[in-house]
């Protein structure tokens, strides 16, 4: 336990080393340092998890442990910002997820990024990201979380813009940063509101279940909602930005411009679930103080997952399909949290959501790494350039299939168990929401198998040189993650993580499970029919619904709406007048003062002639005037 700060410090050290040494380091050395430090981190994280979960429970609950904490900034007696490490079931679980996926990505990148310009920089940024993400999950207080929250934003920006000579990558990095930063404004406002009324940042105090903490906010309302509800909603906005929830999702598909392993690590497995983690961390507060916000979260999550699933069905860039599927799955997790209650069977949604976070991190990282291997072999992201690849890349093919089955929710793969629990919890909360999610799950199975068949079967594309299987450093992570995906579903997750910390045994609700498997099977069957071989029906279907197809291709014009609002309304309506005011009124006043001074000085310049006699005359005249004045008065 005492070793946990080292888990964080190792990636930081590796970042400093590889970042400062820069190109003085050989690429292989930089990669080695990054991978080795991460491997050590992962080992320590496993040790920590093992020891944490093997310590006996106190009153049925795993204790929260703070092995390391120091006060950083003190504002008042109660309000101070600390930096520390908090271990509880979800942060330990996240430690394991992050270090595992990050280690896999580090190993994978050794092969994938080989020979790239800026290899050392890449590893430095990866280490920075891992450090920030670990700091985020072990944060003892909400402000430390915010600090690391911004750090992951920065490292995400740096890594999306890794190919900084490509204009699209630069634009995507900027877009990601601005959109998430805009959402973080809500987060910060929420933190300030919350801490103003509760006089604390500390998670331990906030989530202690002691309603006296929130007594200071009692009676303060704004627009009919209590101030705590507002604070929690604003905090959720921050989480929605990072987790790419509708309508703040627009940055995530573009973020695919970054290197593929980065997409796997940041934009699929870890950073984008930070919002889910945030809500989970504050779940007791949400549940006790603002249940209506939780319902809102569930609705936003459902809309997001449905929207993203529809869009994913028509994308042709394989990474974009995966990006939209990530958005959709995060929507699932949010619904799980939103419909959850506290304790026992009511808390199923909470447990299911975090379980899905865990399994999703593994199989989505696997999908992205597989996509990376395919892109590595074919040198294109477009589905049209692929097809028939199963012959050339057997390992990638099999692992990709495992991940596809997992995300579609086919037993015994891990996605089945977690997704099914979310569906069960949602049906229990509201059948309409449950139906929407079931439909989304069917769409998920459909578009994933559309992707799978278009890549590995269908009409073989013409390749300039035969695609080859990925090197060992790339196929090892694939196999490792596929193995986890195969067995992760059988982890008794409820024993470790549940809403109130008490062990919860997962029961499969076979009514819902059977139904969802049947639906997923049907969707896969449909995809098989349409895309297994080259089939004109798919094109005809698209032609039959031209409006829907075009709208989905254009992602329902959300980007265009953003552009309209920002460029047309905000730029023209607010920014231009403000710029005009600045240029003409404020600058004008200063310029006027300057030119007045200049004119005045030109006018009195004649006095400074340099002729001593003139000065003397003026002095004399002045003296005489004063004397006369004195005499006369």
């Amino acid at each position, binding site marked *: 336990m005492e070793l946990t700060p080292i888990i964080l410090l190792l990636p930081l050290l590796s970042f400093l080393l590889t970042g400062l040494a820069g190109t003085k380091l050989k690429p292989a050395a930089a990669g080695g340092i990054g991978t080795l430090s991460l491997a050590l981190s992962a080992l320590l994280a496993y040790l920590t998890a093992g020891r944490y979960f093997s310590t006996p429970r106190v009153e049925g609950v795993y204790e929260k442990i703070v092995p390391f904490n120091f006060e950083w900034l003190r504002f008042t007696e109660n309000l101070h910002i600390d930096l520390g490490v908090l271990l509880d079931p979800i942060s330990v679980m996240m430690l394991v997820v992050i270090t595992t996926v990050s280690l896999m990505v580090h190993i994978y990148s050794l092969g994938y990024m080989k020979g790239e310009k800026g290899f050392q920089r890449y590893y430095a940024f990866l280490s920075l990201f891992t450090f920030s993400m670990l700091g985020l999950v072990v944060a003892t207080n909400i402000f430390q979380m915010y600090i690391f929250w911004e750090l992951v934003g920065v490292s995400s920006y740096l890594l999306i813009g890794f190919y900084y000579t490509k204009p699209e990558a630069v634009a995507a990095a900027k877009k990601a940063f601005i959109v998430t930063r805009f959402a973080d404004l809500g987060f910060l406002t929420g933190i300030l509101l919350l801490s103003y009324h509760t006089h604390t940042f500390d998670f331990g105090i906030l989530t202690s279940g002691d309603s006296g903490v929130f007594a200071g906010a009692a009676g303060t309302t704004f627009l009919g909602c209590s101030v705590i509800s507002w604070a929690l909603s604003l905090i959720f906005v921050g989480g929605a930005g990072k987790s790419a929830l509708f309508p703040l999702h627009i940055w995530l598909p573009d973020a695919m411009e970054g290197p593929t392993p980065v997409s796997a690590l940041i934009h699929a497995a870890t950073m984008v679930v930070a919002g889910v983690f945030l809500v989970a961390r504050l779940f007791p507060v949400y549940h006790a103080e603002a249940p209506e916000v939780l319902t809102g979260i569930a609705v936003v999550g459902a809309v997001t997952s449905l929207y993203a699933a529809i869009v994913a069905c028509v994308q042709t860039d394989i990474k974009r399909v995966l990006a939209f599927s990530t958005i959709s799955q995060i929507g699932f997790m949010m619904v799980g949290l939103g419909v959850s209650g506290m304790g026992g069977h009511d808390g199923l949604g909470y447990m299911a959501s975090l379980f899905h976070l865990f399994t999703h991190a593994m199989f989505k990282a696997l999908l992205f790494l597989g996509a990376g291997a395919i892109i590595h072999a074919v040198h294109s992201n477009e589905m049209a350039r692929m097809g028939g690849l199963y012959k050339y890349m057997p390992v990638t093919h099999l692992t990709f299939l495992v991940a596809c089955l997992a995300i579609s929710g086919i037993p015994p793969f891990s996605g089945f168990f977690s997704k099914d629990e979310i569906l069960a919890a949602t049906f229990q909360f509201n059948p309409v929401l449950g139906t929407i999610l079931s439909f989304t799950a069917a769409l998920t199975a459909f578009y994933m198998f559309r992707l799978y068949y278009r890549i590995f079967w269908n009409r073989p594309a013409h390749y300039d040189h035969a695609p080859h299987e990925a090197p060992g450093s790339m196929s090892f992570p694939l196999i490792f993650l596929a193995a986890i995906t195969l067995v992760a579903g059988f982890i008794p997750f409820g024993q470790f993580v549940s809403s109130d910390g008490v062990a919860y045994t997962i029961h499969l609700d076979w009514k819902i499970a059977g139904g969802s498997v049947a639906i997923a099977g049907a969707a896969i069957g449909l995809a098989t029919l349409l895309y297994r071989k080259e089939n004109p029906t798919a094109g005809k279907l698209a032609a039959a619904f031209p409006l829907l197809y075009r709208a989905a291709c254009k992602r329902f014009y959300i980007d265009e709406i953003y552009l309209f609002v920002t460029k047309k309304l905000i730029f023209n309506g607010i920014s231009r007048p403000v710029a005009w005011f600045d240029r003409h009124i404020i600058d004008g006043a200063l310029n006027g003062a300057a030119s007045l001074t200049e004119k005045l000085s030109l006018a009195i310049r004649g006095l400074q002639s340099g002729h001593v*006699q003139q000065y*003397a005359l003026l002095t004399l005249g002045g003296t005489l005037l004063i004397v006369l004045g004195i005499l006369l008065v």
Partner: protein
Amino acid sequence: MEYYLVISTIMFFAGVYGFITRRNLLAVLISIELILNSVDINFAVFNRYLFPDQLEGFFFTLFAIGLSACETAIAIAIIINIYRNIRDIQIKNLNRLKD
């Protein structure tokens, strides 16, 4: 006593007038001497008539004479240097520092 004061006043204003109007540095210097001397006369006269048994005024006169000697020496040295440099001591031509 008035006669002395009248003379010193005339000397003073002649000096001032000369200081302002003369074109030649040497003439300006002479004008300054006139002003100083008129002040010296004033010191001596006031001491002589108002405080006959004290000597401060005379001391001041002597002191001022000494000072004016120093001042003249320095001024003439400067003027000579200027002349060596630009072959001219007309005030209107001494404007090089201004540019």
